[in-house]
């Protein structure tokens, strides 16, 4: 019964989303402020009913209601409670319900925090969001209904959740990632609403910025967590595979990163207006395209959802009008958006332009490599190919190095033009310090590698220049310490974000260059050397978990005769599905991880054992966290809060351009 109620709630949410499109649109036509304002109240309604539907499905999972087909195929009575809840978004139907819930959350937040917008701008933004939401609900209800009952013959026991997904990663990774993916619909809606109302001025950029930063921070966190999860859970020790599904989230991230910078330039200086709009459109379009690629099964991926071409066609039917329509609107409205503002080659605008060019080109080459197999298959009539990681590394790495080089100087740049002395002051000393530090890192970490020295030099130059800029901002004051804490939050946000890039880059280059990886044949008592470490295997014993049995190995890792860690990697067999899972054990040290996983059992108690030494691998995710924190911090900057507070107290919003002309 509760399941049917949940289903019904989602149907109501769908209808409310439809009303949220229609009523304010009529309001816009008749200039009826009340109808326009209905968009916000409806947004709350959509959220409440989606949440009810979502809770109903959670209830079905928690109470093991296997008459619901989706629950039966993804849960099991023996599944621990937290995984019963997160199993909801472990496959296509449920994860799309989560997607619509996230969409309704963003729409509601926009309704809540957009009071200072003009009435019709606000209505337009909410109409755009509701229209997207309506499409999502239709797709959910018509092609991917998670509430469907498998009556009358339903199983007494569920098929269980894929063991790889029975993990903390599943609990946090998809919700964060979806907050990012779907959050990009907000700047998209702002852009479309402005094009639609012909109100594409600087205030548009100002309103979009905090939303874009927040969505981007979620996306950053989602991708970072995904990488960390893949590392410890898949048992391969890899943290990025250039897999189609990973790329599907990475391309929107690259575009969104370009967007947050270009929005800054548009807001502060009124430059790149139409380009920024285009980025906002592409950011969300690529996140939709990613959803299509992942869910339609057109691409081969290690973690594609179950394949269903019909669904793919449905998403495509949604994708084409949304992307095509917005580009048409862009073409019709944005062509006369010539900015009259100029800037010098040394101005901050130039640095942001460089950032945008590099990021969009990298997005393009990643997308090309991801879609190339599809095009190839279509052109050659069915020849299957795959594009290996060497392609992505070859094209992506140089672009990122150029981006880091650009970043070094960017912190010191000023809008319009930068004094040459401001850019060059102290750089000689910094170059020397960074070079010494970079060589130091390389020496400490192991055999000297030019790649590490080069990238570490770039990273230290970025950090030193960030420090210089902070110092320059505080030194003028009599009490530098209090001044340090009085900078606008946006400054700290930038410092965190860019420092995060430096940290991640350092982690990546060290891990890639110095990782030691060995697959070993080990009988109990065998000893082997991996890098600077000695590894001794003591065989396995049987253990029992809540819903699995496992062989648990004991591996001692020592260095120079001294035992550093004893690790217990497991090979699990989950009872319900009889599937085999590798549970790696990782010893985390400040300078790197020791990663041990069991391969397969061989004769006489011997095992295939995988041992990886991964120097500085944690830096990759630590940097990602810093970047995301920067994004979150930026939205609390006073500049974004002030207008909201002011308008609630006083002043009718300024009339939009249309209202003035009309």
């Amino acid at each position, binding site marked *: 019964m509760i399941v049917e109620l949940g289903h019904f709630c989602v149907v109501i949410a769908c209808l409310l989303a439809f009303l949220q499109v229609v009523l304010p649109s009529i309001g816009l036509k008749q200039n009826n402020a009340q109808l326009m304002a209905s968009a916000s109240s409806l947004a709350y309604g959509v959220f409440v009913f989606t949440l009810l539907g979502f809770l109903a499905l959670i209830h079905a999972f928690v109470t093991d209601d296997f008459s619901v087909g989706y629950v039966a195929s993804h849960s099991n009575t023996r599944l621990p409670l937290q995984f019963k809840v997160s199993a909801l978004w472990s496959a296509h139907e449920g994860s799309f319900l989560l997607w619509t819930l996230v969409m309704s959350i963003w729409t509601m937040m926009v309704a809540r925090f957009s009071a200072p917008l003009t009435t019709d701008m606000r209505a337009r933004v909410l109409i755009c969001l509701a229209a997207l939401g309506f499409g999502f609900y239709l797709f959910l209800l018509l092609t991917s209904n998670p509430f469907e009952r498998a009556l009358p013959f339903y199983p007494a026991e569920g098929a269980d959740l894929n063991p790889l997904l029975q993990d903390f990663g599943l609990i946090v990774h998809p919700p964060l990632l979806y907050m990012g993916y779907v959050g990009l619909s907000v700047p998209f809606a702002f852009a479309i609403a402005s094009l639609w109302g012909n109100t594409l001025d600087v205030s548009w950029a100002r309103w979009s910025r905090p939303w874009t930063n927040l969505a981007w921070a979620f996306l950053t966190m989602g991708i970072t967590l995904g990488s960390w999860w893949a590392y410890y859970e898949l048992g391969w020790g890899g943290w990025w595979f250039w897999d189609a599904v990973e790329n599907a989230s990475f391309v929107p991230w690259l575009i969104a990163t370009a967007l947050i910078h270009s929005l800054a330039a548009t807001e502060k200086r009124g430059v790149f207006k139409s380009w920024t709009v285009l980025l906002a459109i592409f950011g969300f379009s690529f996140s939709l395209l990613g959803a299509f690629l992942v869910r339609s099964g057109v691409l081969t991926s290690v973690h594609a959802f179950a394949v269903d071409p019909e669904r793919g066609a449905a998403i495509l039917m949604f994708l084409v009008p949304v992307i095509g329509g917005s580009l048409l609107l862009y073409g019709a409205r944005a062509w006369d958006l010539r900015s009259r503002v100029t800037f010098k080659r040394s101005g901050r605008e130039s640095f942001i332009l460089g950032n945008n060019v590099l990021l969009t*080109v990298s997005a393009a080459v990643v997308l090309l490599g991801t879609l190339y197999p599809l095009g190839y298959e279509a052109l050659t009539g069915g020849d299957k190919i795959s594009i290996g990681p*060497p392609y992505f590394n070859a094209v992506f790495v140089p672009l990122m190095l150029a981006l880091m080089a650009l970043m070094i100087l960017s912190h010191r740049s000023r809008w319009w033009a930068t004094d040459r002395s401001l850019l060059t002051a102290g750089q000689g000393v910094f170059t020397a310090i960074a070079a010494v530090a970079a060589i130091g890192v390389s020496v400490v970490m192991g055999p000297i590698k030019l790649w590490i020295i080069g990238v570490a030099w770039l990273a230290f130059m970025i950090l030193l220049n960030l420090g210089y800029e902070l110092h320059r901002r505080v030194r003028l004051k009599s009490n530098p310490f209090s001044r340090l804490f009085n900078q606008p939050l946006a400054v700290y946000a930038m410092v965190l974000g860019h420092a995060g890039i430096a940290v991640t880059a350092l982690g990546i280059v060290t891990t890639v260059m110095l990782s030691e990886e060995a697959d070993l044949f080990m009988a109990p008592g065998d000893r082997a050397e991996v890098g600077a470490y000695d590894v001794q295997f003591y065989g396995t014993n049987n253990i029992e978990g809540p819903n699995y049995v496992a062989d648990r190995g004991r591996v001692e890792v020592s260095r120079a005769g001294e035992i550093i860690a004893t690790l217990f990697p497991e090979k699990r067999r989950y009872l319900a599905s009889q599937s085999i899972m590798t549970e790696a054990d990782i010893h985390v040290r400040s300078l790197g991880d020791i990663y041990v996983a069991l391969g397969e059992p061989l004769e006489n108690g011997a095992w295939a054992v995988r041992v990886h030494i991964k120097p500085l691998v944690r830096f990759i995710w630590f940097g990602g966290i810093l970047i995301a924190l920067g994004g979150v911090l930026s939205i609390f900057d006073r500049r974004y809060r002030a207008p909201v507070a002011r308008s609630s107290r006083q002043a009718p919003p300024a009339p939009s351009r249309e209202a003035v002309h009309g």
Partner: protein
Amino acid sequence: MKLGAMKPQRRNRLLLILGLVGGLGLALTFVLKALNSNINLFYTPVQVIAGEVPMGARVRAGGMVEAGSIRRSDGSLEVAFIVSDLAGAAFEIRYTGILPDLFREGQGVVATGTLSQDGVFFAEEILAKHDEKYMPPEVAMALDATRQDPLQP
């Protein structure tokens, strides 16, 4: 009109456009070159035994792991097994290392590696099905091309 005789603003713009076009062309050349040298074609068992795989080229090939064909060597991680399309075409794959958890007899696998002169495929990487319901599209195609599904007579 000579370049020097143009208005500085126009000349700058022309140079900018030329630079952009040149840079873009160069970048595109590099990208396509990188792309072409990293294409891994997929071959079905029929194509492998028919000798369609270029010797020494890095390609992908796959099929179903034949029951009872898995042989391991003592004291090392070397493993050899036969993959087939269940319709008579089969070839041997050799691999040294840890096989994926889902590697099993009767399951579909895709291997990346090179074919040797004597028809043995030396794999550098083996991918198996991701879950019970998922079949690598290449393997499904290889099977479809040569036989009817035995479950649907």
